[in-house]
């Protein structure tokens, strides 16, 4: 019985048989229906729970820090422990990948499977946005499934590319080699750019290549062969691609090729050493190598 009920005239509502609170406004009275038992008990339980929680876990801010809680639990310690536990479960296989010389991994089916699994996860998380989820590449980002390599398809080449990136200035060992902007910097006239582009397209056997001007071949040999080779096969030490094949990083239409010769430059890939640990990079190397084009 609340004070209200003692002070006010409490009566039983004749229709519902429930007592009223005694409050009455403009002839409307308030019923005093008791709360369901289960609700009252649940409420009491949450109060008890919250008190226990405050004692066991960090809770109340004080003057110099928060109460620590009896368990001494911290989210930052917990995550470190969780990761350590995870590494422990993975350790047997990660240790094997770590300790095996990289060129033996592919010969051991168990290790290969493990390296590919670790590599694939890391690839989807870090590389797929550029190289595509299936490593199929996109304009400006090379396909890693084929055997056409800009910087070399041996395990050691691939590892260097991943560790140090390509034209990634923040890494002093990064792969470098940049095509001059022949058109923009006036090394060739627009007419010459067009001629040498036609020559390249003819040598690449593109079906819609125009019959090249004889000048095109000379322009090529004078300006392009240093990097792309007289045979057009390219040069992996400067990342110059094979031009006389069917694989194009930026497209094979004349506009794309003219644009390349006008603008020069080259694609940029970040360096992953430091960002990813060595075992992950090793697994990624094996993953990329085993996609189909490894040499």
């Amino acid at each position: 019985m609340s004070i209200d009920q003692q002070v006010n005239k409490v009566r039983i509502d004749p229709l519902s048989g429930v007592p009223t609170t005694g409050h009455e406004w403009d002839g409307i009275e308030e019923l005093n229906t008791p709360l369901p038992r289960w609700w009252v008990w649940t409420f009491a339980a949450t109060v008890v729970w919250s008190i226990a929680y405050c004692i066991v876990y960090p809770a109340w801010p004080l003057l110099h820090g928060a109460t620590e809680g009896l368990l001494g639990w911290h989210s930052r310690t917990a995550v470190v422990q969780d990761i350590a536990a995870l590494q422990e479960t993975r350790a047997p296989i990660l240790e094997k990948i770590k300790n095996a010389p990289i060129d033996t991994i592919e010969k051991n089916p168990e290790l290969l499977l493990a390296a590919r699994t670790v590599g694939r996860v890391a690839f989807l998380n870090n590389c797929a946005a550029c190289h595509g989820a299936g490593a199929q590449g996109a304009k400006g980002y090379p396909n890693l499934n084929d055997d056409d390599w800009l910087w070399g398809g041996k395990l050691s080449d691939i590892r260097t590319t991943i560790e140090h990136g390509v034209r990634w200035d923040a890494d002093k060992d990064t792969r470098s080699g940049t095509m001059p902007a022949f058109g923009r910097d006036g090394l060739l006239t627009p007419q010459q750019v067009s001629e040498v582009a036609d020559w390249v397209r003819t040598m690449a056997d593109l079906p819609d290549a125009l019959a090249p001007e004889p000048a095109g071949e000379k322009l090529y040999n004078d300006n392009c062969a240093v990097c792309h080779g007289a045979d057009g096969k390219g040069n992996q030490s400067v990342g110059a691609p094979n031009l006389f094949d069917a694989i194009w990083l930026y497209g094979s239409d004349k506009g794309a090729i003219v644009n390349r010769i006008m603008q020069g430059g080259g694609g940029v890939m970040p360096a992953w050493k430091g960002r990813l640990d060595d075992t992950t990079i090793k697994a990624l190397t094996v993953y990329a190598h085993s996609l189909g084009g490894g040499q």
Partner: protein
Amino acid sequence: MSNATHHAPPSGLQKLIETNSMMLVLGILLMVSVGGLVEIVPLFYLKNTIEKVDGVRPYTPLELAGFNIYVREGCYTCHSQMIRPLRDEVERYGHYSLAAESMYDHPFQWGSKRNGPDLARVGGKYSNDWQRDHLRDPRSVVPSSIMPGYPFLSKTLLNGEHLAEQMRVLRIVGVPYSDDQIDNAVADLAAQASSDDAGGPDVQKRYPNAVLGDVAGKTSVTEEDALIAYLQHLGVSVDFKLYDDKANIR
């Protein structure tokens, strides 16, 4: 209240509150603010809520302009900048976020929704080329992306008119911009956007580890340039090889 004489109305505090709507409002405000006060006020005086770390510096003018565009475009509606101390997040994104890493963000961009990935450590993950491709047309690089394209950013010249004023205001709320930094805001803005501007080294002197643009001889700075400079700075300030996890357990 015609029949009030039949039943005595409630008395004391209850009567005061139930018969006086302003008192009811005040009472509600008082109750609700207790929760807020207990959670928020300690953050102002507890020193241990922000870790002491090396390397976090105020944004350069170009990065700050990028921050403004990030807020204006509502990137936070799809992206968080808060790697929680949970195993799976640390595995995917890297070291969990520290409060110190966002101490100069006003307002902070922790976010609460992840339609896209967390961006707290996206700095240096991709090249500027990729960021440009992706902002102009996300599906050109990630075919299944649901992120909207922002091609207009590359066509909109950056308006840096109010940056110095913004820096002055930020200084009032505790971002340690120096007079030198504020006076040179406009010059630094242009200098950082180019790879070869004469003022580049000055920017890097005023803002350690500032990364210059990747295009030589830039004559105009776009909103896209600023946004990319900001994105490339996310999460790269603290060197976690030198950071002692145990020093900041709490």
